[in-house]
């Protein structure tokens, strides 16, 4: 193979004219650059510059926020925690980070096995098989480490800037955790493949990854759930007495992250060893998994044969039924919806602890949840339509199609709300009424918002819905907050409740009148 320069300036590998280490490292580095480029492009095809600016902006905001948090901690001059609580707190933080990274790693491993579809091409090239796997696994580890670093390093930077140099060790600990998480993600993916086979693994792994993500969100709330204040010394001492002593091996990762030499050396050795063993030891299985995955469908086979039944062909009902079927047959989508709803949990706990609006105020989070769910489901039914041309060529008005789709999106939200509303009704009928009205308002407004800001997308990009249009996501949260305020004021039986409701409804009503259901489904701009 000889070298060449492509249009982006990436030079092709020269396998023949080099010798020694360069002959091995050169092609691997070349392929690694391709991997990173493809991963970067998976963020979005057309708006990469905008994405870069958004990421940079968010990073700056997060860094400033982290500086504020760190300054608050340093300035508070808290009393030292009884041992081993500092280790326990740090272990918790590392575990939290590890869960998030493992979720990303499992997702990336499954993506590498199933979705990229370039394994046949790579394996048919004169590249050594192990080099291909090493590059792919290293690219996964890079993305996992980068994700963890973006989340945790701004906080470490803030403490370093305020003079706490021990936090420099985060620059070692996070890559170590990333390598461990990558190894665990790969081992899990390949074990599932061996246990369940190609057909089931993707589904189970995606659900598992979503569950890990949910646990990640829940772990972040442990301090809130425990309700232990950092100034409650007797409580903290009692908590410390129930934990293993500071010398126990369970605290080694935390001690390593704090810069103690032996635990740190152990952490580095463990992470590098695990990663190397996984990358080299599982290479062959990774290849066979990818080859096996290329030859199968993507979902579970339906073993149960339904009874033959008559057709039902009322157009609106047919559309609603289709949307519901597509949703309930995709457990991955259901877990993604659950995952997005779980990210509202921090807000739930803040409201819960703040007792905002009295004891009834705790219910207001349901209104946010209804809105967020409706927004997500409407995105799926309208923006995530798989066969736009089919619907556009059907003898139905765009309005009737879109109305059926919005109805299909709102139906699961209504079902989800029944039980909480019944429980609320058991406490107070007025509470249930206020919740029902405001949850319906929140859900309808979020659905309309997703109708107004629709753009064609594949359903499997649902997890990135928020990043695709951040303004829309912020507006969804704002709508939920506005309807929660309406409910709060309704519970206090004041006519001022009409004001936030009007604020939520009027702009959407005006926008909707302008579009008047005439707009068709979002069409791809492909010119044929």
């Amino acid at each position, binding site marked *: 193979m000889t070298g060449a320069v492509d249009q982006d300036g990436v030079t092709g590998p020269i396998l023949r004219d080099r010798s020694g280490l360069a002959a091995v490292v050169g092609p691997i580095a070349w392929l690694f650059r391709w991997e990173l480029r493809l991963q970067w492009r998976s963020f979005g095809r057309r708006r990469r510059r905008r994405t870069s600016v958004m990421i940079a902006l968010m990073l700056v905001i997060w860094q400033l926020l982290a500086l504020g948090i760190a300054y608050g901690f340093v300035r508070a001059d808290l009393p030292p925690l009884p041992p081993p609580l500092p280790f326990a707190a740090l272990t918790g933080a590392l575990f939290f980070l590890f869960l998030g990274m493992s979720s990303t790693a499992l997702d990336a491993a499954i993506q590498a096995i199933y979705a990229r579809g370039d394994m046949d091409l790579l394996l048919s090239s004169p590249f050594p098989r192990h080099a291909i796997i090493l590059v792919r696994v290293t690219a996964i580890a890079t993305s996992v480490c980068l994700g963890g670093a973006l989340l945790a390093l701004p906080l470490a930077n803030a403490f370093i800037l305020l003079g706490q140099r021990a936090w420099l060790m985060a620059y070692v600990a996070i890559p170590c955790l990333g390598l461990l998480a990558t190894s665990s993600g790969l081992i899990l993916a390949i074990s599932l493949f061996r246990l369940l086979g190609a057909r089931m693994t993707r589904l189970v792994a995606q659900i598992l990854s979503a569950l890990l993500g949910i646990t990640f969100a829940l772990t972040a709330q442990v301090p809130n759930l425990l309700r232990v204040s950092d100034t409650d010394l007797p409580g903290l001492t009692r908590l410390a007495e129930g934990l293993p002593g500071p010398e126990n091996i369970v605290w080694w990762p935390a001690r390593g992250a704090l810069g103690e030499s032996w635990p740190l050396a152990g952490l580095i050795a463990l992470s590098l060893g695990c990663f190397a063993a996984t990358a080299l030891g599982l290479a062959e299985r990774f290849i066979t998994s990818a080859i096996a995955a290329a030859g199968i469908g993507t979902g579970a086979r339906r073993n149960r044969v339904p009874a033959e039944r008559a057709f039902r062909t009322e157009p609106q009902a047919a559309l609603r039924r289709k949307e519901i*079927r597509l949703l309930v047959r995709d457990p991955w989508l259901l877990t993604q919806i659950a995952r997005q709803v779980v990210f509202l949990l921090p807000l739930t706990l803040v409201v819960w602890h703040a007792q905002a609006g009295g004891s009834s105020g705790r219910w207001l989070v349901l209104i946010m949840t209804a809105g967020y769910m409706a927004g997500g489901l409407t995105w799926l039914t309208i923006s995530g339509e798989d066969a736009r041309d089919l619907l556009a060529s059907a*003898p139905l008005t765009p309005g009737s199609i879109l109305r059926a789709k919005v109805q299909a999106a709102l139906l699961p939200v209504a079902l989800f709300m029944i039980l909480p509303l019944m429980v609320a009704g058991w406490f107070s009928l007025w509470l249930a009424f206020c919740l029902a009205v405001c949850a319906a308002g929140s859900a309808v407004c979020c659905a309309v918002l997703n109708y107004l800001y629709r753009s064609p997308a594949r359903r499997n990009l649902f997890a990135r819905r928020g990043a695709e249009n951040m303004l829309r996501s912020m507006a969804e949260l704002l709508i939920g907050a506005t309807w929660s305020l309406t409910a709060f004021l309704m519970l206090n039986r004041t006519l001022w409740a009409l004001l936030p409701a009007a604020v939520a409804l009027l702009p959407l009503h005006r926008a909707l009148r302008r579009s008047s259901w005439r707009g068709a489904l979002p069409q791809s701009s492909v010119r044929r």
Partner: protein
Amino acid sequence: MTSQDALRITGLTKSFDKPAVRGLELRLGQGEFYGLLGPNGAGKTTTLRMIVGLLPPDSGSIEIFGVDALADPIAAKQMIAWLPDEPMLYDKLTPLEYLEFIAGLWRIDPRRARTQAQFLLEALDLWPQRHDLCEEFSRGMKQKAALAGALIHDPKLLLLDEPLTGLDAAIARQVKNLLLDRARNGCTIVLTTHILDVAERLVDRIGIIQHGELLAEGNLEELRTRTGRQGSSLEDVFLHLVAGQESVPA
């Protein structure tokens, strides 16, 4: 051609950043099997997408069995079926559910739709897989399921964009037989294909389009006469016509 044209296109024009279709004129009679041929980017798919109502033309008119497709798209769509090269399927539906869904969109009587669905799935050898999700299907099976969807409402005008791409010989023959059967029963079919042998054997009349304009139209004999290539294959005639227009400016 019958007294009422199945499809009548007059002065159809569409531009994106450059003209894609330029003043296209086309008349098709009922039951006619018409092949719209042309090199890549000639404007074939854009034309079909305008007929089916997926793209609004810049100017011109489209009439389907006397119905103005631009003024009354719902009535026009009721008579049309469109089958693009990429099957418009839902992975998480079974073929039977997919056909039930299509029947719903076209408001077909449920009993008639059920009978028709069974007939089509049996004719296309998909009946044993009627309860499997479409995501399990090969490319050919997906194309057959999509074809069944296009035929379930008994369209009077069938628009097929590269329907045989990627199909193996056996499946391609099944599809061709089904299409010929439909044409014999009065369905007007417009087919685009790059497989000129197929066009030569299937269609009654051929239109060759390039740079958005109709270069030539007629049956194979008429095209041979026009190009002075008696006894030549459609491929020769096509290449001769297209090569003669290569210098046409965009």
